[in-house]
């Protein structure tokens, strides 16, 4: 890191048309060759500040200086011209185009009238080699893993000559390996003189890779710190304004009947590959069964089967109370006490064009206590929504706000609030705290444990080692579609051992794994 300041945002205030003050006198100063963390709770205004820098949103007042000169960024195009690139929290890729087409879109090399595909592919190869990003230029984006898609996004910015790169929660969707790969690449970029603004809720990562950190709370600038001078605890106190105690108190387990049982399950994905291969396990009342594993090892397909989203499979999934002759549909599963926090909140979790309230009641709109005869009981619904918004700390000014206007983490809170607040026998929690700040994540973990103490069975899927290890009672590790390990208790399990199973270095015998089914 040099002391050369390349970018300065001064006293930025942003008021959205609906009156939300997302930034209030926010400051950010980024130096050459530095990785600069931008920290804050959900809704603190991080994304908004970066959208202003990238020309997607416009500040109400303030000033931006690039290399000491004041600039006006009115569109992403201008930002790109000024050497600013952004990788969004939710990707901006056309899934049906190839990697090359996505990257060179808008700056296509020509040969006569034609697009010079050969040259384009070479250009993509060249940048990806220069920065050591390995992606197949001819693949369709929809066939790529999340980690690879992110690389395409970063390449999109680099090929356009971005010197300042904004990464909005880049690691939220990455596996531990992909994360360390990304960090190596960010180090390379830094050495080559690029500056990176890094938004993350994972403070350990920030500590590991960043040089300095700017903290925001409720849109207000809290200060900029050298990472060496602060601890993770300091940072979280600055973000939240209080200490977060991060040790989960668990009562002794009180196991009951089996609620969910999976027998010899096999699933095939769209490319005809077997992605879940002979999986057997059972979850009982009062048990939190964690499923650890690097993302893409069959967890998604497994959960899709269990929750009724995918219906082509062989083997058996049985839910206590759901009779054999009953259809294995989402509605029937829900009626029989299965609640589900899905992995992809925008696709399965929320209807982003509907209000918070409508999203909250979408799994219980037909319950007797929310209806009066054939009409909805608006009063009861309002009370319920306000109650849940408060309890789950959804940052919004009204229950009628459209979910689309919420920050990423606050959308996730809406899903959690809905799924954890009805009676249930089993909760399927798939990455329940993705993109959620430490404070609320702790709250959700406590809630999960509370449900377990009440006798609910919980299946917790997470790519975050800390999360599965902190919360689960027992643990399954998935590797290449199979169960690679089963731990009845995780007391003596170390992160290193777990890591070895996740990476397929170690594998348990059939005998040992059988423990999962009883």
């Amino acid at each position, binding site marked *: 890191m040099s002391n050369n300041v390349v970018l300065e945002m001064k006293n930025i205030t942003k008021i959205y048309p609906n009156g939300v003050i997302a930034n209030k006198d926010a400051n950010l100063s980024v130096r050459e060759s530095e990785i600069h963390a931008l920290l804050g709770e959900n809704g603190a205004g991080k994304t908004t500040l970066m959208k202003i820098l990238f020309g997607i949103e416009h500040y109400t007042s303030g000033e931006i200086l690039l290399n000491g000169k004041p600039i006006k960024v009115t569109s992403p195009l201008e930002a790109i011209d000024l050497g600013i690139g952004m990788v969004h929290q939710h990707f901006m890729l056309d899934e049906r*185009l190839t990697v090359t087409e996505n990257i060179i879109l808008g700056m296509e090399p020509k040969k006569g009238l034609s*697009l010079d595909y050969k040259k384009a592919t070479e250009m993509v190869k060249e940048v990806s080699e220069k920065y050591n990003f390995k992606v197949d230029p001819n693949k369709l984006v929809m066939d790529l893993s999340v980690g690879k898609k992110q690389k395409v996004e970063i390449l999109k910015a680099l090929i356009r000559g971005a010197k300042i790169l904004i990464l909005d929660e880049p690691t939220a969707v990455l596996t531990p390996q992909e994360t360390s790969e990304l960090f190596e690449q960010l180090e390379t970029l830094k050495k080559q003189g690029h500056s990176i603004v890094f938004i993350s809720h994972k403070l350990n990562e920030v500590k590991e890779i960043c040089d300095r950190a700017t903290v925001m709370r409720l849109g207000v600038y809290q200060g900029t710190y050298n990472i060496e001078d602060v601890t993770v605890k300091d940072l979280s106190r600055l973000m939240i304004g209080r200490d977060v105690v991060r040790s989960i108190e668990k009562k002794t387990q009180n196991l009951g009947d089996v609620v969910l049982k999976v027998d010899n399950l096999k699933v095939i994905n769209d490319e005809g590959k077997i992605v879940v291969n002979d999986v057997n396990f059972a979850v009982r009342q009062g048990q939190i069964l964690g499923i650890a594993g690097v993302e893409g090892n069959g967890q998604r397909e497994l959960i899709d089967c269990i929750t009724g989203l995918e219906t082509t499979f062989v083997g058996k999934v049985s839910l206590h109370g759901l009779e054999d002759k009953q259809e294995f549909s989402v509605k029937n599963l829900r009626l029989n006490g299965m609640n589900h926090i899905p992995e992809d909140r925008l696709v399965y979790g929320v209807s982003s064009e509907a209000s918070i309230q409508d999203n909250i009641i979408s799994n219980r709109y037909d319950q007797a206590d929310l209806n009066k005869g054939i009409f909805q009981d608006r009063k009861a619904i309002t009370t319920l929504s306000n109650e849940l918004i408060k309890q789950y700390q959804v940052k919004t000014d009204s229950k009628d706000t459209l979910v689309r206007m919420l920050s990423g983490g606050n959308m996730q809170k809406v899903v959690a609030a809905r799924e954890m607040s009805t009676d249930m026998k089993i909760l399927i929690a798939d990455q329940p705290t993705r993109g959620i700040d430490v404070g609320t994540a702790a709250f959700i973990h406590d809630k999960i444990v509370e449900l377990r103490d009440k006798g609910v069975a919980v299946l917790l899927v997470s790519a975050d080692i800390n999360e599965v290890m902190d919360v689960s009672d027992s643990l399954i590790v998935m590797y290449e579609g199979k169960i690679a390990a089963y731990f009845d208790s995780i007391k003596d399990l170390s992160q290193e051992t777990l890591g070895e199973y996740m990476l397929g270095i170690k594998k348990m015998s059939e005998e040992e794994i059988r423990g999962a089914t009883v």
Partner: protein
Amino acid sequence: MELFSIFLNPGFWFSLIRSSTPLIFAGMAALIASRSGITNMAIEGSMTLGALAAVVASWYFQNAWLGLLAAVLVGITIALFLAYFKLKMMADEILVAIALNLFATGASIFILFLLTGDKSNSSALNSLVLPTVSFAFLNNIPFIGQVINGQNILVYVAFISTFILNYFLFKTPMGLRIRSVGGNEHAAESVGVYVHKTKYIGLAISGMFAGLGGAFMSLGYMSLFTRGMVAGRGFIAIAAANVGGRSPIPTMFSAMLFGFFDNLGNNLQQFKVINEFVFMIPYIATIIMFAFSSYRRMTEKKRLNKKILASQKAE
């Protein structure tokens, strides 16, 4: 059998190609609009007004080529109008298209009446038609020569433009941009593609094809404008483009398939089949083919997976 003998007659195939032509033009119009992210349901109306404009200009200037030009201009104007309402006024494109189609029906009859005093056709206007083309070398090829030689010039234009559009869409920078604004406009915007401008271009091309289709109706397929002559071809074309996966060459073939039924209907009139039933054939065929192809597409993966899983179970 008598019915079968229809297919041995080169005349049947000759007119199949002829009656596929407006569907190909309209199919291209439908697919390029859809690729740019706007459903152009106004093709039907554009073809109607285009067909009328073609006759009127051809009569007025006594030049069929100027008739063709007029039809194209009308088509482009209507498509840009649709795009403007969708992009600038944030209106629903389907509702705007319905309004445009209703307008086209009414306006075409009104204009026809003003010019001729007749509300059903333009036989009072001695408009010129576009030339047919013969290639001497084709005469030597039996059957095929009879089928493809001597067609109206726009027939050849239709087939050739399919390939040009294919090249444009998949091999040129503008084609890529059009596909990207229809695919994920935020992605396109994030790299500085002018989304609106690109959509206007896509729609202008769509309008041009609709105009060509209209011109063929009144300057080639027939030699005058008659009320209701487009007869739903603009809508069938949307189905054809979908069956063809929104790609020009498959769309051309699916348009020909629809043309086949259209033509079959015409030929069946010689037999003692109830007229009304015959007229239904192309439309019923449309519904069946459309349902079938979307069902296939929907279940393709599922069927494949079931098969693999079944073989797994047997092991």
